């Protein structure tokens, strides 16, 4: 008998209306439909969510960790890209 494992799926849960789906973990399932059902059982059993996305882990294209210096470090010394140099007038809330 072959011991082929079920494919791995990444699970994204939307916790509330208006918020975006957030990666919560992964699981194994034979197909998309059962991946959603398994995600429901594994990741929403304590009312964590109102919507589920699953994506085959194989289909995710990731950045290469060895390229981190050229990808991310150049942004570290560019504080002027943050909108922190404006004076917020009195009376403006939620900023």
């Amino acid at each position, binding site marked *: 008998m072959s011991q082929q494992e079920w494919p791995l799926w990444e699970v994204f849960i939307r916790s509330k209306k208006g918020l975006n789906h957030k990666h919560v973990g992964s*699981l194994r399932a*034979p197909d998309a439909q059962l991946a959603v059902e*398994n995600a429901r059982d594994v990741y929403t*059993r304590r009312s964590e969510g109102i919507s589920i996305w699953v994506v085959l882990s194989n289909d995710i294209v990731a950045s290469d960790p060895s390229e981190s210096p050229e990808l991310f470090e150049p942004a570290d010394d560019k504080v002027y890209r943050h909108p922190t140099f404006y004076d917020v007038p009195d009376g403006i809330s939620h900023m």
Partner: protein
Amino acid sequence: MEKFNYLLRLGDDSLILGQRLAEWCGHGPILEEDIAMTNISLDLIGQAISVLNYAGDVECKGRDGDALAFLRLEKDYKNLLLVEQKNGDFGDTMMRQFLFDAYRKLLFERLQSSTDKQLAAIAEKSLKETRYHFKHSAEWVIRLGDGTDESHKRVQNSLNNLWRYTDELFYVDASDKVLTKQGILPDLSDLKSLWLQEVNTVLDLATLQIPTNNWQFEGGRKGVHSEHMGYLLSELQFMQRVYPNMEW
């Protein structure tokens, strides 16, 4: 008395199947399915708590849901023979679940319109859980039936073995007829044909055949159980029998 009797039937189906599914805890074929089966088990135990507590209120003899769940003798349990059948392999468990869920879904849909408000409310809440149980078990029956030669052969065998317990799903006696007259039980006469339709749709997709041997068993509804029931109850009742009234 009729209402008490009916509530025992309803509550015991949930309790005993919940206990059976709990036996899978830590033994599931894969982690995700282990969690799915114990989730369903907990849904069923939750239904048993509401129904048996209500049964205790209706009986008015000071017994609560716990007393009813843990301290009755075998002949006083009124669950279907189907739900007390052993777990067998994963296919056996999913087939048992599927045949039961299809029936329970239709039943709860009807019970929502019971004139008994409490029963209607329990049905409404349980229906949501049951719709998911049905979806899950039906998906598995389809995948196992329409899967490999091995899985097809084994789950066809599960269907052959469990089919003989399905007539009892639609067991009706004088006690039920009294409740129907009072409107506590809605008209359930077409439940079996609807169930067959529902079951056939899934079995077709699963390429499975209903066995032609139509010999049927019954007894659970009258408290006459199969040889498996005593073992199940000894495990279910162990704590309350050894440490009476213990709580944690």
